[in-house]
């Protein structure tokens, strides 16, 4: 293509700080027309901040932004849209109380006049049809009624719709985080098609395989800077991990480090039958086991975890729980974090009765508990009394792990807690989970990443709210899981 080498966006020495935290320390970065650039790095490496700068939603403290050859001095979200820069943020930016069509309207000021609803509905549904042929979403569906995966589909499709302004550069920040493998594949194929048609993309993902397979060029960020940027062929998985830094262990070592165990003879801690399952396999977890819940996103895994959670305080039909339960939320903002509180208060909240000294909560014990877990789980902060939101996403997630592991709970439920967490953090947490399991804790671990199932002693695969496969440790493989998740469904 003749236009292949035209640079459409370039950043030059961009710096951005939030208070004392330096999120970007002089970033140089560019994207050419008809190019898909992968952006990888740890959480807290500055990827999301960089995207906010590009989308005009965060003004850089220093540095130049050049778009289509023109330096942008008064850059803003509105200006970015005029120039054809679109962004799909990690935290979804749809209005839940509006319909799919109305959300398209919010995005396109040009959709007005007499039959704007029809125009907006057609625009968004056509794009959904193009990207996700079997999406099953209607223009008049309310966003609040859609599952999180479908919301993400709407969000992505909306970013590619064109009315009066072009979509030259689309930034996708973890676009597949809530999609199952099938829809993620559809999306990635569409991105390839769009790029071939002259659109540029910035693709941020923690799933390195996705990045390696689908991007033309890959930029690696570390500590607020782009440390390497090269053609995708120049990288492989290990090189990427090395470039991101901080991770000295490869995945293989972790796996061999974990002790293989058969089905445990230890006492049963949890016995649960999914609500939509009248017969067949029951989920059973013994003391000291790590039990995986697999399958496509939204097929009843979370529901079962929640019913186990509520069964710990109140009798429920079909669920037996033999010990105190703690839950590590996957959706930090809505299910986990107390935004007004410090890190130590956030960790201590599950153990309040343990922290009591007489009637009052002991500040000292609370601090001791928090500091012990800061060291154990490596929460990166100068002071545990800082607000929880001063942490990067991955570290907030660690605090939530600390909350559960510091508690008296012998059963820990994990609701896809590694969503959007960087690789280094993951390895640290995996090791911790094995260690805690050896000490007798039981883990029930719902995950959408097949790789993580290798850390489990036993895996139950879910489909349409029921357990469809029951895999022992030596039977766990990506093929088996995918086979069970999809059999009959497609």
């Amino acid at each position, binding site marked *: 293509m003749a236009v292949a080498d035209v640079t459409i966006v370039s950043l030059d020495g961009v710096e951005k700080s939030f208070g004392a935290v330096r999120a970007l320390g002089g970033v140089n970065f560019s994207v050419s027309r008809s190019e898909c650039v992968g952006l990888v790095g740890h959480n807290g490496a500055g990827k999301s901040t960089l995207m906010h700068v590009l989308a005009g939603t965060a003004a850089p403290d220093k540095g130049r932004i050049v778009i289509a050859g023109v330096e942008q001095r008064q850059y803003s979200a509105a200006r970015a849209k005029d120039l054809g820069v679109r962004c799909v943020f990690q935290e979804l930016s749809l209005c839940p109380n509006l319909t799919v069509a109305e959300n398209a309207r919010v995005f396109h000021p040009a959709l007005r006049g007499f039959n704007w609803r029809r125009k907006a509905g057609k625009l968004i549904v056509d794009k959904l049809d193009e990207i996700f042929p079997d999406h099953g979403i209607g223009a008049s569906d309310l966003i609040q009624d859609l599952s999180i995966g479908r919301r993400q589909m709407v969000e992505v499709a909306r970013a590619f719709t064109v009315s009066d302004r072009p979509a030259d550069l689309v930034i996708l920040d973890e676009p597949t985080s809530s999609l199952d493998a099938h829809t993620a594949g559809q999306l990635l194929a569409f991105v390839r098609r769009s790029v071939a048609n002259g659109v540029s993309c910035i693709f941020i993902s923690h799933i390195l395989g996705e990045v390696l397979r689908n991007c033309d060029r890959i930029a690696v960020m570390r500590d607020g800077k782009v440390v390497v940027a090269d053609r995708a062929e120049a990288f492989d998985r290990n090189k990427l991990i090395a470039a991101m830094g901080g991770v000295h262990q490869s995945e293989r070592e972790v796996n061999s480090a974990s002790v293989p165990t058969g089905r445990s003879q230890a006492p049963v801690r949890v016995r649960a039958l999914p609500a939509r399952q009248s017969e067949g396999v029951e989920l059973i977890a013994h003391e000291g086991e790590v039990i995986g819940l697999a399958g496509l996103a939204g097929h009843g895994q979370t529901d079962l975890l929640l019913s186990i*959670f509520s069964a710990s305080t109140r009798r429920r039909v079909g669920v037996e729980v033999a010990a105190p*339960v*703690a*839950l590590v*939320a996957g959706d930090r903002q*809505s*299910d*986990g*974090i*107390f*935004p*007004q*509180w410090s890190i130590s*208060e956030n960790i201590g*909240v*599950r153990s*309040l*009765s343990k922290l*009591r000294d007489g*009637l*009052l*909560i002991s500040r000292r014990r609370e601090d001791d508990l928090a500091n012990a877990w800061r060291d154990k789980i490596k929460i990166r902060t100068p002071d545990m009394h800082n*607000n929880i*939101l001063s942490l990067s996403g991955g570290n907030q997630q660690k605090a939530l792990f600390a*909350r559960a592991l510091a*508690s008296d*709970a012998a059963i820990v439920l994990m609701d896809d807690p590694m969503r959007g967490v960087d690789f280094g953090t993951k390895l640290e947490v995996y090791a911790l989970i094995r260690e805690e399991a050896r000490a007798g804790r039981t883990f029930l671990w719902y995950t959408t990443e097949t790789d993580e199932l290798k850390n489990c002693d036993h895996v139950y695969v879910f489909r349409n709210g029921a357990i469809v496969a029951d895999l022992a440790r030596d039977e766990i493989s990506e093929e088996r899981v995918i086979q069970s998740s999809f059999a009959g469904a497609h």
Partner: protein
Amino acid sequence: MIAALAKLASKPWIWSFLGAALVWLAAIAFTAGYGAGGMLTAALSLSVFTVIVGVGQMFVITLGPGNVDLSLPANIGLASAVAMKVMDGDDRMVAVGLAAALASGLCAGVANYLLIWALRIPPIIATLSASFVIQSIDISYGRGLQIKPPPGFADFTNIQILGVPLIAVLTVLFTIGAGIALHRMVYGRSVLAIGQNIRAARLAGLKVEPIRFLTYSICGMLGGLDGALLAGYFRGANVDIGGEYLLASIAVVVIGGTSVAGGKANIPGVWGGALFLVLLLTMLNTFGVSAGVRLLLTGLIIVAVITAAGGQKTTR
């Protein structure tokens, strides 16, 4: 010194005390210093009634968006009648009467919570419905009630030590206790957690519904206590005795720096807000303005204060 001042200025409640001091100064400037002390004594006495219900309202508001107790005026009115009837002018019955008033308030609080919990309706509507019913009970029960409080009880509400009303001292102790409960007890921590994120609180294993129940019950009981004290202070019960405490209880909570979005509460601010409101009315009375002007100025000043103090910065 400057650092200490800066730290003080960052406390949200400091503004309410500054405002209170300002209106007091304006009032004594008008009277050329005459009655400055008496004004404070009276303001402390009157603030007590606002502070007691304000603390209850604060715990309720801290439970999160939409939580508010609109039944306080009706609750106060009924409790004042109950207290007067049970005491029946007899000093020996004061304790029983107070207990009856607390019980009446507790019933109101429990009724509120049951409506919220059983019907799953927003607390604003639930407490509003409850207040209609309570008000009717009061109208019917307290009709033509002319019982004076027992002399000992009436005197008790007026005792002063060096110009400081005894009930104000007791109320300060009570608010200190409430502060400790808020920040250092499992109950208070749970209230704050629920107010920030009720879902996360539930998933963190906090006993959400019992805490909400307790909070509405406590607020109701404080309303009941307030009714009894008001009847003692004003020498008699009546249906409208709690009328002004709906707006006042909400206003002092928010002027004092408690977040209406929930999860952030402020005990000293309730005192600051109450003193401010009471002194404001004192000042306007001193100026001798008409009822219309007084309302107008009260309103404008509340808006001005909240504008000057600014909203809470969203941390996200």
